[in-house]
């Protein structure tokens, strides 16, 4: 609402915890970017890394990184941000009691130490070239004093960061309110925030979001369904923006056969058959649209290290799928449960394709948190997953989550894990690329997951708003302004 200098943006999912380390939903990532600062800034326009909280950084060796921390930055509560806060945050995040939700984000860190007034040294668990990317993404800095005072629960209710917006209210189930940080440090590469107030409203219903947008109840929504986006373009007071995102949709198959009814999935031929059965192109052209692409590898194609060269492709071929199924001993198919949490029609389309080759999939549509829990408890034979890599433009942000033996790895293929470990820690660029390519090839051959396509995101917002979208699916309202 321009008149009240308040931008109301809506999304459907709620972060169980606003603390950036304790949720892995996109809505949480957005809030983290607005309320907290990273050490390093990744300039998407140039592809270069620039100083943010760290004024400079140097690799001492492939496992040691030294950073100089900026002076004069303060947290929202007025406390100065110091090297101590950085050291505390990193050491706390890797400790087991922190129970960080996405381990991959910090698992590369061994420890941090203060080596001077404003100097911090990070010890890595092994060579990890993507470290800079992570430091410019999911790793944000917490205020040590405040955090130690209020604890994890208190922090979730009233988080304090140093970012361009300060969080003023967290209402579970309802949303989060943020206000412009008028004391935001001058030279931040993020720039100075312009809009006075941000209100994040959780509106679970796409349609309600749409109705609210049309009636001016909210100013900005995203993930508008392709069909609707096209129609919305006609509305005079709205702007519609379509952009590809880093999010990749895929089917995760329980190759271990640990879930109830997932026995058939142990057979690679069955998994391949599933891959062949799905007409990804038709889905892309008719359902996804908006600049999205078909993905053949288990990562987003533009991430560093991600490639589909030499990776086997499973083009739509139901006949072959049936043949494979028959070879695997399922000439009449089988019944199985499929879990999904968003884009129900994509999941249903998949079910339709599976049905055509004889696999009777039953859809279970859940909230993300519930689905993740079931999946991690080995109760989901097939899951329709999507992953936005925390906007980290490095293949490790994808493969690391799904194949390195952590909670979300349902393949548990030691060979793949080892190959990825090697790739993650290879410092030399060419060798690193080759290592990823090799790992991705094995993953695809064994069809542990069926990559479908990248997502496009359709943003729709009021004409009053000047907003530009980035491919990393991370709206930056601190750069937005009223027209």
């Amino acid at each position, binding site marked *: 609402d321009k008149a009240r200098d308040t931008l109301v943006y809506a999304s459907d999912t709620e972060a169980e915890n606003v603390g950036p380390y304790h949720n892995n939903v996109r809505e949480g990532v957005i809030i983290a970017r607005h309320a907290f600062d990273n050490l390093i800034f990744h300039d998407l326009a140039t592809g270069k890394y620039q100083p943010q909280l760290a004024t400079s950084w140097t690799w001492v060796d492939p496992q040691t990184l030294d950073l100089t921390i900026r002076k004069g930055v303060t947290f929202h509560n007025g406390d100065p941000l110091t090297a101590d806060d950085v050291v505390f945050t990193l050491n706390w995040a890797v400790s087991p009691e922190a129970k960080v939700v996405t381990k991959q984000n910090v698992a590369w860190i061994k420890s941090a130490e203060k080596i001077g007034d404003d100097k911090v040294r990070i010890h890595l668990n092994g060579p990890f070239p993507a470290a800079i990317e992570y430091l410019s993404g999911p790793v944000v800095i917490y205020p040590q004093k405040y955090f130690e005072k209020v604890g994890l629960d208190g922090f979730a209710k009233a988080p304090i960061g140093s970012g361009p917006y300060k969080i003023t209210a967290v209402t579970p189930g309802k949303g989060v309110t943020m206000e412009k940080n008028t004391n935001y440090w001058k030279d931040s590469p993020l720039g100075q925030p312009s809009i006075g107030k941000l209100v994040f409203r959780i509106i679970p219903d796409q*349609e309600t979001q749409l109705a609210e947008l049309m009636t001016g109840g909210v100013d900005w929504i995203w993930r508008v369904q392709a*069909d609707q986006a096209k129609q919305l373009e006609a509305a005079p007071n709205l702007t519609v923006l379509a952009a590809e995102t880093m999010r990749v949709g895929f089917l995760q198959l329980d190759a271990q056969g640990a879930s109830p009814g997932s026995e058939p999935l142990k057979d690679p031929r069955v998994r391949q058959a599933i891959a062949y059965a799905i*007409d990804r192109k038709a889905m892309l*052209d*008719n*359902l996804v649209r908006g600049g999205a692409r078909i993905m053949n590898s288990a990562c987003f194609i533009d991430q560093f290290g991600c490639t589909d060269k030499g990776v086997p492709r499973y083009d739509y071929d139901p006949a072959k799928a049936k043949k494979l199924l028959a070879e695997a001993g399922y000439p009449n198919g089988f019944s199985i449960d499929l879990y999904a949490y968003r884009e*129900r029609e994509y999941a249903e389309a998949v079910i339709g394709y599976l049905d055509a080759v004889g696999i009777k999939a039953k859809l279970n*549509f859940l909230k993300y948190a519930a689905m993740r829990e079931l999946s991690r408890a080995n109760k989901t034979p097939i899951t329709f997953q999507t992953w936005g890599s925390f906007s980290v433009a490095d293949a490790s942000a994808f493969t690391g989550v799904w194949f390195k033996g952590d909670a979300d790895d349902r393949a548990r293929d030691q060979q793949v894990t080892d190959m990825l470990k090697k790739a993650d820690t290879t410092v030399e660029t060419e060798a690193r690329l080759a290592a990823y390519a090799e790992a991705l090839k094995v993953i695809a051959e064994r069809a542990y997951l069926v990559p479908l396509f990248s997502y496009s995101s359709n943003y729709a917002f009021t004409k009053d708003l000047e907003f530009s979208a980035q491919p990393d699916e991370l709206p930056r309202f601190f750069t937005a302004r009223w027209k």
Partner: protein
Amino acid sequence: MSETLPSALKAASLDQAPPRRSALSTFLVGSLGHGGLMAGAIVLAAIVLIALAAPLVAPHDPYAQNLARRLIPPVWDARGTWDHILGTDKLGRDYLSRLIYGARISLLIGSVTVLISGTIGTAIGVCAGYFGGRVDAVLSYLVTTRLALPVVLVALASAALVGSSLQGVIVVLGLLLWDRFAVVTRAATQQIAGSDYIAAAKAIGCSTPRIVLTEILPNILNPLIVVATLEMAHAILLEAALSFLGLGVQPPLPSWGLMISEGKQYMFFSPWVIAIPAVALVFLVLAINLVGDGLRDVTAPENRN
């Protein structure tokens, strides 16, 4: 103003000479004269017939998707085609065929649920009404307990626990919706249990099961049928609500509630996607309710001669 019926009328009007119309023919005459009942019965019969003959009347396979032909509007729209009279859904499945198959699901849910809940409720109601005293107190307390549980919430929670599926929904609703049966049969049974023909049956030496089965049950059949129809409508609506909330029947089954739920995202720009199943649902429930109300009117004691 009001109709004050002389109390002697009840006796007087009964005391007329035969031959008179049989109960059945009075019922039929009453039904035919009851516009609402007839309209409801015709619509309901039509829906039941279509549901039964679904494979014959459905023009397409309700599950066959064709993404290239999605969201075709119905034939009355300029962009519609006769191939898909009611258009296609978001996955390019023929909407008419899905609607027709959906009728099966709604009717199945309605009837099986009522069968389960009717059996439970009638058993409870008849026992409470017939035996009275402590039995009645215990069973009444059961009914109160059941009523205290919020149906939608408990149904949702149970569906979440047992896993949402067609069978799950039917069982959960069947186990939840017996309260009205119990209340109505209890009241009806109480009334009958006090009547002299029950005393006469006892004096003749009839056993209790015999009394319940041959003397009481046939006489509470009317209210029972009425409740059954109304509860059937209730069950269908509840299933729709559960499906709407995402914990009812699961895709790709074409339940009408689910179709409404799925069509919701198109409600602004392709309103027919939601309007068609919604109208079908309203029609079905309306028809069932009309039949139920009509039966109540026709079989109500004051209308029986």
